[in-house]
């Protein structure tokens, strides 16, 4: 009898491992192994014709911490994240609440909001390049109607990062709206009716009932927005190339530059590991802290 049970259990275990293995193999090959390889190469010096690569412990990291550009880029990216994450989530929520209510042309509104998401980032960046172009651009054209002077939005350090931030928000809000819309549709209609009978205002209903019920979605979107704030840099290549004078340079762009423009793979690897570490920590905080305060249905 017990032998029979054991056999069955082993069969179950094998079945489980077989189901897991495709994902495990792919992840190991393309995520775990590269991460570890990156970590190892970040501990070695750059290989030149005269000097072979050698183990230098954390010297690459100390170099980075001494590099003023690195700190500018970190600051830029923190600012970029601090603006794009909350603003795109807030806009997404507002759009979803509106597009979920009984309005005419609801389908059209939803499609319109979602359109930026469908566009590839490169195409979107080109579009915005046209908006931002001094003199010719739409922004300047509108500005000139009101007698405002021409502004080189992308060309001056004070506005370049803002210009990039706006493109990102424009691109992301519609995408996040879809998640909110889907979540809103799972909230039963009769909760609203029950609240109505109790004399609950629309605002109170949204704050006390809808927002808490949307928390799982918000958490998911927050993690995504955070990852995007590091990951999404396609538009930098079109809009500013990180300039002027590093004003709009984000960390991933700097890594790319380090690896493929300056051909300094070890420093790029060190920076990659730092980004990975920070992302892991933040995601862990979001999940463990907010998860406990979130109601799942």
């Amino acid at each position, binding site marked *: 009898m017990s032998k029979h049970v054991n056999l069955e259990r082993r069969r179950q275990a094998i079945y489980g491992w077989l189901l897991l293995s495709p994902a495990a193999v792919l992840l190991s090959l393309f995520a775990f192994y590269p991460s570890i390889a990156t970590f190892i190469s970040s501990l070695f010096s750059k290989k030149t014709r005269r000097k072979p690569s050698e183990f230098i412990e954390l010297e690459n990291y100390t170099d980075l911490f001494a590099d003023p550009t690195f700190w500018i880029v970190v600051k830029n990216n923190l600012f970029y994240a601090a603006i794009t994450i909350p603003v795109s989530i807030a806009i997404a929520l507002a759009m979803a609440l509106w597009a979920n209510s009984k309005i005419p042309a609801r389908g059209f509104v939803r499609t319109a909001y979602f359109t930026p998401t469908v566009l590839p980032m490169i195409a979107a960046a080109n579009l915005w390049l046209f908006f931002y172009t001094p003199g010719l651009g739409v922004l300047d054209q509108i500005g000139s109607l009101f007698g405002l002077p021409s502004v080189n939005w992308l060309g001056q350090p004070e506005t370049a990062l803002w210009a990039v931030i706006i493109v990102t928000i424009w691109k992301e809000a519609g995408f996040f709206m879809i998640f909110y819309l889907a979540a809103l549709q799972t909230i039963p209609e009769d*909760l609203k*009716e029950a609240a*109505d*009978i109790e*004399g*609950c205002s629309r605002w*109170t209903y949204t704050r006390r009932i809808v927002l*808490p019920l949307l928390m799982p979605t918000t958490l998911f979107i927050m993690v995504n927005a955070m990852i995007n704030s590091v990951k999404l840099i396609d538009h930098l290549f079109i809009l500013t190339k990180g300039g002027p004078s590093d004003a709009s340079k984000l960390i991933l762009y700097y890594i790319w530059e380090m690896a493929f423009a300056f051909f300094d793979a070890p420093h790029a690897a060190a920076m990659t590991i730092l980004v990975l570490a920070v992302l892991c920590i933040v995601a862990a905080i979001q999940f463990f802290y907010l998860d406990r305060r979130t109601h799942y249905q």
Partner: protein
Amino acid sequence: MNGGPFVILKDVAKRWNGQLGVEDISLEIEEGSFVALLGPSGCGKSTSLRLLAGLEIPDEGQILIDSRDVTTSAASDRNLSMVFQSYALFPHLSVAENVIFGLKVRRVPKAERAEKMKRALEITGLTGLESRKPGELSGGQRQRVALARAIVAGQRLCLMDEPLSNLDAKLRNSVRKDIKKLQRDLGITVVYVTHDQTEAMSMADKIVLMKDGRIQQVGTPDDLYNRPANTFVAEFVGAPPMALIQSSVLAGFDKDLTLGVRAEHATIVEKGKGQLTCTVSEAEFLGSETLIGLSHEGTTGLSVLQPGLSLMDEGVTVDIAFDTAKLHKFNQEGDRITGM
């Protein structure tokens, strides 16, 4: 109480895209009574309740609650509470928060809130479950939370939309008694929507039977059972429902009538001594008695009750006799012929 009806609906109609919602709903409800809106699904009973609740606004007609015209008032201004079929509990709030949600919205002071909640939870037997979430409760407990939320504010009118339909049969019986007791003890007026005639018959002081958006009959359970206004009511109320017989198949009646007979007023008699010879189509043992289903051309739903276990084989022919004085007569349109 000022003597007049507490709730009045006058010629209320609601249509959707020209299609029939409800039509000509006129109804008077006394304070402290238990009124059941009964009917098959799609008959407009829920729509009537939602019109009364203010969740829908009627196209025509007038609604008065406590002598106040509330036809176009918002739901919150009608001073009523409601129990939803799905209970509509807020899943992220605890039992206590769910119950006092309305009080909080209406800015009732904290001490009063706690007092009222304690009482509501005591009445519904939920004490000790205050901090649970709805997801951690059984179906019956959730149902009681919905009840507690409905009575906590002390509104005099409570609307219930099929509150028992998500419970299993055994629980349904006990909760039915609880609701009825609650209504009596608190002296509140309850308007109760159900498609289950047993619920309506056992709980209600007054039943409103509806079909296709129109009221078929308003009356006490006794009225509906013993004096059905038309053949629809006759066939809807009672288990088994009333059998209908074309008068042409029976001797001694005018033609073009429909006769109604309850199972308890028909008996199987010796061969040759009955008024009708029919074939047994089914036999159902119910415990204390056995229900024998019979078929005969020109009749529907004919059946007799036999005491104890007395199953009969299908296809056997039997003679039956009726208590002629207990027969119901309906005209060709299906309406009851009175004065018999």
